[in-house]
């Protein structure tokens, strides 16, 4: 069971307890959302890298040097 740690500023008492069902459901949703975000981020990064490599190759085929491609 995942825990919740809470500090009350007024009393100075820190408690550790099990998550409630509602808290557990909220965190499960967060994990699901986060997994989707990571997948989307990975896909975007991969596409960007592939597009750059493809574009660089086409520029090189036109006769540009590596320095000219890097300077764009």
């Amino acid at each position, binding site marked *: 069971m995942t825990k*919740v740690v*809470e500090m009350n500023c007024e009393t100075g008492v820190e408690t*550790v307890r099990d998550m409630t069902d509602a808290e557990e459901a909220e*965190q499960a949703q*967060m994990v699901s959302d986060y997994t989707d975000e990571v997948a989307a981020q990975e896909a975007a990064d991969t596409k960007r890298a592939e597009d750059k490599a493809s574009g660089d190759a086409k520029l090189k085929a036109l006769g540009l040097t590596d320095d000219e491609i890097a300077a764009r």
Partner: protein
Amino acid sequence: MAGTYDFLGKVTADGSSAVMTLSGIPQTHQDIELIFQAKTDATYGASSTDVTLNGDTGSNYRKTSWGINGNSQYGEASATTHFDINFGQGPGINDDMMGFLRMYLVNYTNAVDHPGFYQNSSWDNQNTGAQWWGGVLYNPSSSAAITSVTWTAVYTIEANCSIAAYGIDYS
């Protein structure tokens, strides 16, 4: 009256929790600053953070931000049930990440609108880090003092991570 910046309280993770709450925040100042310190050894920004106030999970949180994560730049606007600090706490695919989030909210006592700003930075053990800046607004349906702040993470929060609150008076 001279301005003041006073420590109000701090909660520290013990390594067993995915949720941390700082409650009973004293209603003694005009503004409040919240400092989050995060670290994880899990992959993909595991300390990703949802921040809620007063245990409120209504659609009362707005955030406009821009930032850089590794070599990519982003801008976003959201109106959701929490302040979503995802990716800001972990910049890439590598593990052993650490991060810092600073959120400043004005009028934290007895107001409907609690506007503010945030800034966060993170680093992992190989990539350049992530940096985010933005404006935030906590806007419950009626006047409410901010009495607690909660950090919900995707994974277990490492021991010694923390949320600290500071109160500010300036007039």
